[in-house]
Every structure is written in structure tokens, then in C-alpha cells.
């Protein structure tokens, strides 16, 4: 599957973001579980404390005969009722305990009239049963509190391990993303920057730019674009220079040997320098190299024939054809360098 540049840049970060979200979700869920475990322990302790309050309120009610104690006892019982509902909603399975608690509540409350109405013998008997029930409730609560505390401690330990694990996964992921970004983005960009530096090679500016900064690369691309246009223009100019030479209207002194060499002009320097380095394996590039060499050879031949007074029609025609092909192929090859 071929990925676009945007995909190459964004995908690693998107994956890292998703991983972060997944890790955060896992940590959050675990934290909720941990908190639920701690809440459960607190709830159970509150139930135990409220049960003890009920007993104390009923006894105070008997001793002081104040209705406010009955109200307090009812409110404490209501609190137990609500806490048991909370435990049930959290999947506690406290139906049996609720029944036992209700039975206890009814018995403890009923001791009120037994003592206040002087049915002390039955009252004492009932009180003994109530104490037994209270102990049963205590035993269940103590057992569950202990289990909840153990579970809570286990969850805390697991939570710490999970946090360390998440941190490790995060660091590994960051490293993987860094490697991917370097391999898929930074290295190719550096290569492009180097190629562009070659394409836009200007003896006065070479090495002055920072390198592979995006703005530098963009600047280099602009330069490269202009260079290609310049190279085409310069070689097009050779046609009118040669025509003037053939017509005898030229005022410049042309050196056939220098013109025949394809290393001396700016395009020639690039073709045999950075161009060859970065695009040496490219068929289109090699075609340009060949056309450029043929163009200079023909130009040199025309100048040499003019000097010896021989006809120039054939080499001039070959030159014109080579110039046309070079112009077309340079325009075609330009995006490979400039838009890469």
C-alpha cells in the first residue's frame, strides 16, 4: 500500500494518539474499579456503624422515653437500607443480609414495648436473641469488610503495576513513532533537501542555507524551478547565437572546442554533479544527459564548420532537433526534482 506524505506524517501520530486514549481509558476504568473497591469498604463500615447506632438509639429511647430516639433509629435504619441498595446496585448480592437486618431491626425495635410495658422476662429473652442477631450481622460485616480491604489493596497494587506498564508502553511507542518518522519522513526530506541544493546550486549560495528545514527546502524548490527555466532559456539562446554565427552577423568570438564540452555550462555542471548523484539511476535523467551532450557536440561542430567555410546545414539541423528534445525532456523532468 502506497501512502501519501500526509498519511506518512499523520498516521504515526494518530496511532500514538489512539494508543494514548486506550491507555488512559484503561487507567480510568481501573481507577474507577479501585475507587469502587474502596467505596465498598467504606459502605460496609458505615452499615456496621449504623447497625450499632440503631441498637444504641432504641436503648436510649427505652431509658429516656423520648420519641426523638425512635426517629433517630428509623433514620439510621433507612441509611442501612440505602447502603444495602447501593451494594446491590454494584452487584453485591445482599438480599439475604437485608432480610437478616430487617429481622434484627424488627426484633430490636420490639424490645421497646416489652421493657416499657413491664414484660421484662420476655424482653430480656428477646434482647438475648437480638444480641445474637447483632453478632451475626457483625460477623458478616467484618468478613465482608476484610474481603473488601484485601480486594482494595490488591487493586491498588495492580493499579501501580498498570501505571508503570502504561508508561513503558508509552515510551516504547514514542520510540517506535520517532523511528518511523525518521525513516519515512525525515530521511527522505533530507534527501530531497540535498537534491534541491544540487539542483539550485549557486556557487555564491551553496552551503549557506540551513539544510533540511521546511522553509529552506521550499526556498530551494523555488530556486530549482527558476534554474530549470534558466537552463532551458540559456540553451534556446544558443540557436540564435549559432544562426548569427552562420550568417556572419555575430560579433562574439566562439570557441568550438569549449562549446563542444558538455561540462562547462550550469546545466552540464548539475548533470555531472548533484544530478548524477541523486538521479543517476533515472532513465529520463540519462536521456537528458545524452541529449545535452549531443546538443553541445552539434553546436561545436557548427562553429568549427563556419570557421573553415564549410556548409553547416546538416549539423545545424541536428542541433535544432537536439535542442527541441532537450527542451521537452527538461520540462518533463522538472517536476521530478521540484515537486518531489
Amino acid at each position, binding site marked *: 500500500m502506497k501512502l501519501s506524505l500526509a498519511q506518512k506524517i499523520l498516521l504515526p501520530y494518530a496511532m500514538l494518539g489512539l494508543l494514548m486514549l486506550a491507555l488512559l481509558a484503561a487507567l480510568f476504568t481501573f481507577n474507577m474499579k479501585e475507587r469502587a473497591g474502596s467505596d465498598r469498604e467504606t459502605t460496609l463500615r458505615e452499615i456496621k456503624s449504623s447497625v450499632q447506632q440503631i441498637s444504641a438509639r432504641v436503648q436510649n429511647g427505652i431509658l429516656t422515653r423520648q420519641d426523638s430516639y*425512635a426517629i433517630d433509629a*428509623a433514620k*439510621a435504619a433507612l441509611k442501612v437500607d440505602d447502603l444495602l441498595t447501593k451494594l446491590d446496585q454494584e452487584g453485591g448480592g445482599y438480599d439475604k443480609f437485608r432480610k437478616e437486618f430487617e429481622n434484627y431491626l*424488627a426484633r430490636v425495635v420490639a424490645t421497646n*414495648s416489652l421493657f416499657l*410495658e413491664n414484660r421484662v422476662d420476655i424482653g430480656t429473652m428477646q434482647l438475648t436473641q437480638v444480641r445474637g442477631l447483632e453478632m451475626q450481622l457483625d460477623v458478616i460485616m467484618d468478613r465482608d469488610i476484610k474481603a473488601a480491604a484485601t480486594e482494595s489493596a490488591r487493586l491498588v497494587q495492580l493499579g501501580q503495576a498498570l501505571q508503570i506498564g502504561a508508561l513503558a508502553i508509552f515510551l516504547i511507542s514514542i520510540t517506535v513513532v520517532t523511528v518511523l518518522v525518521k525513516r519515512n519522513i525525515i530521511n527522505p526530506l533530507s534527501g530531497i533537501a540535498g537534491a534541491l541544493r544540487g539542483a539550485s546550486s549557486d556557487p555564491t549560495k551553496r552551503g549557506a542555507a540551513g539544510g533540511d528545514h521546511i522553509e529552506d527546502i521550499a526556498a530551494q524548490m523555488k530556486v530549482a524551478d527558476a534554474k530549470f527555466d534558466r537552463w532551458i532559456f540559456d540553451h534556446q539562446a544558443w540557436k540564435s547565437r549559432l544562426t548569427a554565427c552562420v550568417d556572419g552577423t555575430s560579433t562574439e568570438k566562439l570557441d568550438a572546442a569549449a562549446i563542444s564540452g558538455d561540462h562547462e555550462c550550469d546545466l552540464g555542471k548539475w548533470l555531472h554533479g548533484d544530478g548524477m548523484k541523486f538521479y543517476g539511476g533515472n532513465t529520463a535523467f540519462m536521456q537528458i544527459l545524452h541529449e545535452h551532450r549531443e546538443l553541445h557536440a552539434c553546436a561545436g561542430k557548427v562553429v568549427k564548420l563556419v570557421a573553415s567555410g564549410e556548409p553547416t546545414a546538416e549539423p545545424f539541423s541536428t542541433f535544432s532537433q537536439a535542442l527541441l528534445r532537450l527542451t521537452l525532456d527538461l520540462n518533463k523532468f522538472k517536476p521530478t526534482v521540484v515537486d518531489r
Partner: protein
Amino acid sequence: MQVFSSLLIGIIIVATLPTQVLRALLMVGSVLLSPSGYALDISGASTVQPVAAGLIPLYKARSSEPVRLEGGGSSVGIKDALSGKSQIGMVSRELSDDEKKLLKNTVIGIDALAIIVNSSNPLTNLTKAQLLDIYTGKTVNWSALGGPSRPIVRVSKEVGRSTLELFEHYTGLLSADRLRTDKPSISKEVHIIGSNMEALTLVGGMRGAIGYVSVGTAHAMAKAGMPIKVLTLEGVEPTLDAIKTKRYPVLRPLNLVFIKETPVVTEFLSVALSPPGQDVVKSLGFLAVDQ
């Protein structure tokens, strides 16, 4: 002969004493004769108990003699009055014909039986049929009556309480603790308690609970902060007006019963029927007899 002389002298001395002194002496005598050592023993229905407790300060304003007040239910009120353990028995129901032959009674107010649920219960009304289904165990969850999904916790009273008798009379159900008859009975899945306060505490302490108590006590305790509420029965709220016009279906008299109208008993009855005494009755949510 000597005994006869002493008695004659005694009668002459008593006849010459001023009324107030004589009255005081009689009260002292009552204290000495009372098995508990109190000038006035009152026991019985827990429904009437708060009324009696409210009347005692008024009574003590007239006489500083000690008074003992105890609950136990209407049957205890009858039994104690008959045995002489209490000079006054509190009975929160109509007296039977046999009881009427043995005891004198004074009605000091009218009460109604209130059906109560926890204040968090969204239900506001019950029909007699629904009440029967709840107490026979046919309906076991409030969701069947349009309430939340929560098991119904039934609270009923022990045998000997007139509140239970009134409930039995109205519903036609009998307590499961009574000897078996062909009548339908209250479910065995029920918490049995004694006094109104106990019923109120249980219903206030459990969101799924239902019970029945004296309307006066229910209103007074709800006002004091007990988390309960009184339901309308067959669409009728047990207001004083509904009780007075007998629109509310479950009513009962609040009786004070006694064998002999001794001065202390007469004094207490007089306090109970006096305007301040009837104010006490009204303040507790009962219908006064002068209304």
C-alpha cells in the same frame, strides 16, 4: 362495743372535716391502698398513651399525687382495670358486651386507623382490596401497585392490641398468631411489633415497609420528623373532618375504663373531658368528643 365506739367517733370526725381536707385524705388513702404505691395507675392502649401523657400535667396541676402510666395494649388496659392493678385502663376500641357489664367507660376522643408507608414511597392511596392483597402476601412488590421495584415489608401488631383488632375487623383477615379459623389470615411473612411507636420506627426505617397505626400518632410523629406518610384509604384521607363525618372507613373510640369511680378517677376523667383536656386530644390528631 369498743370497736363500735371508735367507729362512731371516727365517723363524727370525718363528717366535721372540711371537704378539701377530706379529699386530700382520700387521695392519700388511695396512694396507700394502690398496689404500685402511686395515687393513680393508668395502663393499656399505646394509642391512648400519648393522650394520657398529655393529660397528666393538667391533672397534676390539680393534684400533686404521683401517677404511673404504662402501655401494653387495650387487652392489658381491660385486664389491669379488672384486676385492680390500674384504676384506669386505656382501651382504643369499642368495648364488648361482656366488658360493658364489668367495666364503666368514658370516651375521650375518636381515632382512625392510618395506613402508613415510608415517606419515600411514591404511592398515595390504597384500596381495601389492595391492602388485603398486601397483607395476605398476594402482592409482594410495590411495582405491582405502580410503585418502584422493591419488596413489600409488612408490619403488623401483636395479638392483644386493639389496633390489630380494628385492622382485622376492617380487612376480615386474622393475625397468623391467632388460633386457626376458616377466616383468611395475615401472611406469616410479617414483622410483629407492639406499640404504635415501634410500627412507626420500622416503617420509617425501611423504604419498602407498610404498617397501620393510630392516625393521631402517625401525624404527630410525621410532624416530628419520622420519615413516614399516611396513605388515603379508598381515596379518603383520615382528616378530622373525614373522621367526624365517618367518611373514613376505619374508626374507633378512645376509651378510659374503670371499675369504681374513685375521687382520683373522677378527677382524671374530669381533666380529660375539660376543654384543656380535649385540646390535648385534638393536638394529637384525634377527634375530640366535643367536636
